[in-house]
């Protein structure tokens, strides 16, 4: 067992969440962007509604720009990546400089992409760095419990986004199983009622969507603060 304070556990958990938020929203952004080219110019409105962020965007171009690169927009990819980095930098000794460097690279690349003629091409590199971040974390974060806390954050965030974005049940089921697996290896205090509720909802199979609100609420309240 490692040496992990409340503060540190929090940073480990949230670096997992924010890194995953950047990853999944970027991947999903590309799908919506594709639609916005010639199918539905206002598809971003649906995206905002699904991920529960305010639609503050004037139009498609404004969304493309601000949702990705605007530091003053707390929901932007850029802001989320900065938060991931802020959580990482204070646990450098735990996750290693090598692992942290991939978030720094992702940030630098995102910043450079903002000025690029084809920013969306460049964003692929940001996704690649996040993959590298997790690969490096698996190798370099020596303490198993610390790694599992990061993964708890990652899978909780992924589940939350998958539920909101309506991902297929087979993917949700898979991610929930990963989450529960990690949960059993950490000592984070959680609410067993929320856990039982999620078990019950996902046991419904593809009909889980009938209780989407309940599932999201159980996820939101899962860990005891």
């Amino acid at each position, binding site marked *: 067992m490692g*040496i*992990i*304070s*409340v*503060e*540190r*556990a929090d940073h480990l958990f949230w670096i997992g969440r924010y890194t995953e938020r950047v990853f999944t929203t970027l991947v999903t952004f590309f799908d919506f962007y594709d639609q916005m080219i010639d199918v539905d110019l206002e598809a971003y409105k649906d995206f905002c509604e699904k991920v529960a962020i305010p639609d503050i965007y004037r139009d498609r171009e404004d969304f493309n720009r601000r949702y990705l690169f605007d530091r003053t927009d707390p929901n932007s990819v850029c802001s989320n990546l900065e938060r991931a980095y*802020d959580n990482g*930098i*204070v*646990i*450098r*000794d*735990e996750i*290693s*400089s090598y692992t*942290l*460097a991939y978030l*720094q*690279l992702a940030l*630098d690349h995102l910043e450079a992409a903002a000025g690029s003629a084809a920013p969306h091409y460049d964003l692929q590199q940001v996704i690649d760095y996040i993959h590298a971040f997790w690969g490096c974390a698996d190798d370099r974060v020596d303490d198993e419990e610390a790694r599992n806390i990061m993964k708890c954050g990652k899978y909780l965030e992924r589940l939350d986004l998958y539920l909101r974005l309506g991902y297929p049940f087979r993917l949700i089921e898979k991610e929930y199983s990963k989450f529960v697996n990690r949960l059993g290896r950490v*000592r*984070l*205090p959680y609410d067993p009622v929320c856990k039982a509720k999620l078990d019950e909802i996902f046991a419904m199979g593809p009909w889980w969507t009938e209780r989407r609100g309940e599932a999201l609420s159980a996820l939101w309240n899962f860990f005891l603060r």
Partner: protein
Amino acid sequence: MLLDLVDHKESINRLLARYGVKFGIYKNHEFHEQLFPFDPIPRVIPRREFDYLDRGLSQRVTALNCFLEDIYSDKKIVKDGVIPADFIYSSKGYLPQCEGIRPPKHICSHISGIDLVQGKDGNWYVLEDNLRIPSGASYPMIARDLTRQAAPEAFARNHVEDNRGYAAMLRETMEYVSTGGIHVVLTPGRYNAAFFEHSYLAERSGSVLCMPQDLVAEGGKLYYRQYEGRKLQVGAVYRRISDEYLDPLTFLPESLIGVPGIMEVYAAGNVAILNAPGNGVADDKGIYYFVPHMIKYYLGEEPILRNAPTYLAFYEKDRTFILEHLSRLVVKDVSEAGGYGVVFGSNLSREELGALAEAVRREPRRFIAQEVVDFVDLDIVEGEARVPRKADLRAFVLAGETTRVWPSGLTRFSRNPDSFVVNSSQGGGFKDTWVLSR
């Protein structure tokens, strides 16, 4: 021989950016992080010269440690009239709360950063002793790692002492003074100017990087609080928080970045604090004048290293000299640090000189004046050219079971051709420092 390094300047700086080698700076109350510009041409110190520095620095830090122990106990040096009492008790760094506290193994300055310059006459001069929380060792450490990758031939062809043992030296120092338990690097947080260093040294030395709220003083011991409720005893705290903020129960009550009760645990001898609180009394710019006297007094030896010629406005004779030669001296406000409060008389207008003279007359204890040491320039790479710039050396001396000088150091340079000020907070860059092993 250094061509490989020069060719890789951009790549090395890119790698430094990748690893977040930055320092923070507050401008208009806003925190900004900047990359610390690295110049690939190292400062090279031949073995014999380093041996000389090694002896001089060890001697100096040993005497300073004797002084600190003495000042917070018997005060023999004051009683014997070597240092005027006024210089102790009016120093902002003197903390009456530390009176009578005996730090573990009687060491006060575990990590000392001594700033030196090499004069054009070849002599080394000590400019400043930093005994509170000197920063900077992490930069040449990580730069060495990266430059060895970028230009292996430069290292294969030269015999350079490996400086990456600093983390092990730090760990050994902490272990030596530890009262039993884990070792932590205590940082005030993410928005401290030297946060990179805190996190990097914790990583490399195998210590736990912790925030004040991670620690709790209970029952005369200091503990690290685990998230599931267990507590681990802490034996050594390498704190990177200034004395006045370290413990709100002892120092500034409004401090939100301290650990309440840590001083009580320390006073009971149940935790080591590196460096010891109260060290500021010894790195006061006024006390600097007396360090050669301390060496003679405590060690019975002649000082090996020179101070820059210094005048104390406190002494009437010196004050008269300072006022008569103000335009050629560098005047330092003893209460300032980081390159602030340093004024070159030659840069001042007649009115400004008059105002400075008035300030010296009004508050003589606040100022020292030094002859401007014409120190050697070191080449840096600027564009395609090599240009000379003023550079100093911060040498790191670690006092544990023995007092050891790290065979490297932080060489800082001014990027401005007309400036002697090398501090990173004022736009300076840094170089690696090579100590040749033969």
